[in-house]
């Protein structure tokens, strides 16, 4: 049987499952896979975290350097997010630059962290207009089994919560302090599978779904960032429903994130 036929069979199967509120791996349509967060494993990083979301595995490292602020925000630190779709994570990740997907992923994760004001950028100013801390969030995808958007945002948040400002190393102060964190954004990503909408898709589900919708909420239940992706569509009602579902479902991830801070 050709690849396309297999794919069509799988698509049909998954769509009928979803219609009944079921998933191939036994989950409900709005249920996350098991999540596990580890922190602090990289001693060369200012902060680090590994997130397992089902079999998806992302390692995030935070580096902090000193630089000059942007002209239009002389009193604020800066933040840069990049993702490395390492070839070992997925046969389809070419060693060459898989530009568009990787850039969309980086930018959506970046917006979730940035717009939630998770980091207190004003607290990263060392000398107004001259010297600020630049926070680099580097995400290393190690195993791609779907839903990189949520897994990366979670890994970034966990690594930031683990981060220390390296005052001593850079001669800024004689004590290192924790990176000040204002709030906790959680990203929830939905997939359109036939006429159903499912949460936290696996790679298999991603390969047959038509559209993606990501929404990030802060801990007060307010929206901070969103992104519709892929060449399918959602109805207006599906979008509004997904946003509500996100608020109801993101506590699994939120608890995991809280867990590491205790």
């Amino acid at each position, binding site marked *: 049987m050709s690849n396309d036929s297999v794919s069509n069979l799988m698509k049909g199967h998954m769509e009928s499952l979803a219609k009944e509120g079921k998933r191939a791996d036994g989950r409900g349509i709005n249920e996350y896979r098991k999540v596990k967060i580890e922190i602090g494993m990289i001693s060369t990083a200012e902060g680090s975290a590994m997130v397992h979301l089902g079999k998806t595995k992302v390692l995030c490292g935070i580096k902090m350097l000193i630089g000059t602020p942007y002209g239009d925000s002389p009193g604020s630190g800066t933040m840069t997010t990049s993702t490395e779709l390492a070839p070992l994570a997925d046969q389809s990740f070419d060693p060459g630059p898989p530009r568009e997907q990787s850039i969309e992923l980086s930018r959506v994760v970046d917006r979730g962290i940035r717009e939630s004001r998770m980091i207190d950028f004003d607290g990263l100013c060392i000398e107004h207009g001259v010297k600020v801390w630049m926070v680099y969030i580097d995400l290393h995808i190690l195993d791609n089994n779907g839903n990189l958007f949520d897994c990366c945002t979670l890994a970034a948040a966990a690594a930031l919560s683990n981060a220390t400002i390296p005052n001593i190393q850079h001669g800024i102060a004689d004590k290192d302090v924790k990176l000040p964190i204002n709030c906790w954004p959680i990203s929830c990503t939905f997939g359109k599978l036939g006429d159903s909408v499912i949460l936290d898709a696996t790679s298999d589900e991603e390969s047959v779904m038509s559209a993606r919708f990501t929404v990030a909420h802060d801990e007060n239940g307010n929206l901070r960032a969103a992104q519709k992706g892929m*060449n399918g*569509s959602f109805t207006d009602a599906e979008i509004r429903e997904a946003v509500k579902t996100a608020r109801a479902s993101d506590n699994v991830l939120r608890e995991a994130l809280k867990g590491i801070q205790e």
Partner: protein
Amino acid sequence: MAGQTDMELIKNGIRMDGRKPDELREVKIVAGVLDNADGSCYLEWGNNKVYAGVFGPMECHPRHKQKADRAIVQARYTMAPFSVNDRKRPGLDRRSTEISYIVSQAFEKVVMVEDFPKASIRVDMQVVEAHAGTRCAALTAASVALADAGIPMRDMIPSCAAGKVNDVVVLDLNKEEDNYGQADLPLAIIPSTGEVVLLQLDGHLTPDEFEQAMDLATSGCMELYKKMRHALENSYGGKA
């Protein structure tokens, strides 16, 4: 989104540029402005100025991007170096790459791609002056250019943003509102079905505000849709 600001952007329900919260900036759309392109459009939206041009369906390059069972849409959004106050370096940066990518995908939903296996439809959007909302302006212009090129589509895609300034949900942020406002939500829909083909959000919205913003952006899209059809009718009239 700077978010917290003392700047008074709305006073007595009127915005700094004189608009009401649910009012679009002025929009001018002209179809068929370019001679070489198979279809084209020039659009002014407030002070934004955008050209869109379409070629195709044509052979897809590079080959490895061809799809055996359908056409692909290769959209490309760029900003001219002189389109902003600080000179922008030429070429695609990360923001332009992301916008090009999501716009390509939005169009693949409405263009009859299954009618043109292996082909490519090229959509080029050139922002020559930018004052907030250029992705919506570019997407809207590109829809008109596609229609002008006679590319078979299920529908055109109007695109419009809602946002939040001074805790008020408003339609179509201008530049100051974009710089000092609290949220921006660009939306693109298929008017005939109400389907959402593009949605982004930056900033801070309560659940209620999100609902309002969706309502407002949708009505903005519908208003724009009329202007788009009007522009095409003018163009056909002019050509006949």
